[in-house]
């Protein structure tokens, strides 16, 4: 008890605004060429103004409700809960328009871009969900969109490529490096240097140079804020014992954690075993920010390998590195086999086909409940970040 005030103080200060240099503890920052510094500053200024402007907030709230379908449901997973001896609540981002949480962030950034007078959105994408969300927002707001996507991901996620093109976006294949998400980030960044006048770089996760990690978390905190309110009516204790989300760059997790960081809930981020920057990474600088990054002993960035294209990222958002260092959040990993099994189990027990990315969170809950790491009767909020339609051909190949 003696420590309680100190703990409260730490909690209250967590997931607040980063320092003026964009630091979360020792992580974050703005490691971009001098050429891009003014563009990042312009985004930061515009975001600060917009976020403090009730008219902007009202516009965004109306789009989130009337267009994206928020609030998303909180669904008790009855049968799986019974099997596992816990109470599992699913925050249903798979029900949001375009099929994942990515739309929350993109609607915010696209409105911001339009307010800044930009006419074109640039985006990177891995699984294609952020690309689809960006193409969608561009269509809605009458803007152009160019999406950079690794050649390997284009092959793995053909459905989403076609969706983006249907929505009028230009999809640019990236053939450099590992031809996945990290390379599409490089390419989007390179392209932005030459297009800052009319183009806005719409980053898809809590990564990139300041203010992106902070801004994207703020646009995603709607997940956690809604879930907090929903848990208060659903759970006798109002707050779950555990809050669990999958982590690629970490945006659905950051948005979810933001709603619970000041509570007693344990925060768990689940990374792909083949792309676990928190577990296997070392401190480094990639894509404009300092964080934990998978790299070899020479400092060359390593390739991530996951069955889920959206988690094939060698870094993690800087705020997660900070929360992990503080011990406020814990980061764990699951392997591809458990993930595929979790997709099947959730589908059969609840009638919900989730994305391979989201299934990482499900897989950890199953494993932890079965091993006793999650005590019997524990209450768990799990953010189901997206739906599985895009993964059907990959799952068919594995079947």
């Amino acid at each position, binding site marked *: 008890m003696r420590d309680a005030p100190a703990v409260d103080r730490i909690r209250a200060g967590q997931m607040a605004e980063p320092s003026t*240099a964009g630091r979360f503890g020792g992580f974050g*920052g*703005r*490691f*971009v*060429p*001098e*050429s*891009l*510094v*003014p*563009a990042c500053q312009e985004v930061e200024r515009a975001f600060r103004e917009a976020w403090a402007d009730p008219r902007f907030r009202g516009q965004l709230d109306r789009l989130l409700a009337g267009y994206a379908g928020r609030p998303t449901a909180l669904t008790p997973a009855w049968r799986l809960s019974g099997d596992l001896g816990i109470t599992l609540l699913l925050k249903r981002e798979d029900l949001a328009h375009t099929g994942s949480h990515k739309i929350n962030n993109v609607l915010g950034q696209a409105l911001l871009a339009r307010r800044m007078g930009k006419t074109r959105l640039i985006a990177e994408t891995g699984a294609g969900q952020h690309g689809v969300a960006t193409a969608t927002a561009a269509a809605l707001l009458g803007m152009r969109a160019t999406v950079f996507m690794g050649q390997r991901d284009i092959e793995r996620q053909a459905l989403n490529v076609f969706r983006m093109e249907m929505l009028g976006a230009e999809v640019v294949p990236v053939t*450099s*490096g590992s031809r996945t998400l*990290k*390379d599409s980030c*490089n390419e989007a*960044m*390179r392209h932005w*240097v*030459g297009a*800052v006048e009319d183009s806005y770089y719409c980053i898809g996760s809590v990564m990139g140079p300041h203010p992106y990690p902070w801004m994207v978390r703020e646009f995603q905190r709607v997940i956690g804020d809604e879930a907090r309110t929903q848990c208060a009516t659903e759970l006798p204790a109002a707050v779950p014992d555990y809050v669990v989300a999958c982590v690629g760059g970490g945006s659905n997790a950051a948005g979810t954690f933001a709603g619970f960081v000041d509570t007693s809930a344990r925060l768990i981020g689940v990374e792909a075993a083949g792309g676990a920057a928190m577990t296997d990474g070392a401190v*480094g*600088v*990639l*894509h*404009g920010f300092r964080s934990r*990054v998978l*790299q070899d002993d*020479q*400092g*060359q*960035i390593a390739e991530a390998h996951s069955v889920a294209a959206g988690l094939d990222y060698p870094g993690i958002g800087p705020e997660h590195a900070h929360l992990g260092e503080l011990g406020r959040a814990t980061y764990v990993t699951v392997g591809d086999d458990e993930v595929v099994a979790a997709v099947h189990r959730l589908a059969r027990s609840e009638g919900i086909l989730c994305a391979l990315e989201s299934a990482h969170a499900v897989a950890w809950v199953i494993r932890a409940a079965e091993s006793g790491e999650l005590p019997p009767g524990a209450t768990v909020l799990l953010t189901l970040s997206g739906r599985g339609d895009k993964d059907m051909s990959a799952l068919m190949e594995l079947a």
Partner: protein
Amino acid sequence: MTLETHLRAVREGGRTALVPYVTGGITESWTDLLAAYEAAGADAIEIGLPFSDPMLDGVTIQEASDRSLARGTTVESILSDLAGISVGIPLIAMTYANLALRDGFCARLRAAGVVALVVPDVPLDEVSDLERSAAAAGVELVLLAAPSTPPAKLPEIATRSRGFLYAISRMGTTGEAGELAESATVLADAIRNATDLPVLVGFGVSTPAHAVHAARHADGVVVASTLMRALLDGATPSEVGARVAAMRTALDTMAP
């Protein structure tokens, strides 16, 4: 003698500084290029320490970096290659933050005879840590300015830059260009208004004519992609050296 003193002396001698680039480890015999550049009349040489994710490089330097890394090149291997040779002009390393911010990096450069360092993804606002370790190791940390840099920021960049100030010619990545961007000369003029530190223009300086054009507004040029393109396409070190020699001749014979 520091790089800055050297480049000031070049300027006072009425000469334009010519700084060709090579991706370290790109071929087995890459250090032959250093000798070829020196013989061609280079005033300093920029050596790229290849990084897997070069954010500010276009396709040519990306390809050069990939080829070098695929050969198993490391910072260590490049620096030990340098230990075996002697070059009579200053060597400048160019690499990215993830390599440059590793413990002991600047000291290792200095021990291998590299006197200066350019790190394009560490802008002024993030430079403090690197500035300290470079200064402690006796490495001159060269800062960059871009066409988008507000003129009001140039004096501070100039004050904190060591060696020279690197003027990024255009809003884009490295890469060969048909013409030298208009923004190159505008930026070089603005920098010269702000400082008397030597100003070198880089990015897209691809021909002797580009070099001459830049030299009317700056103290020198950095030439990279056009040389690496030739090398990747099969040119020998002496053929690549001949391109540098052609630029030297054009710069030395340009009308004042």
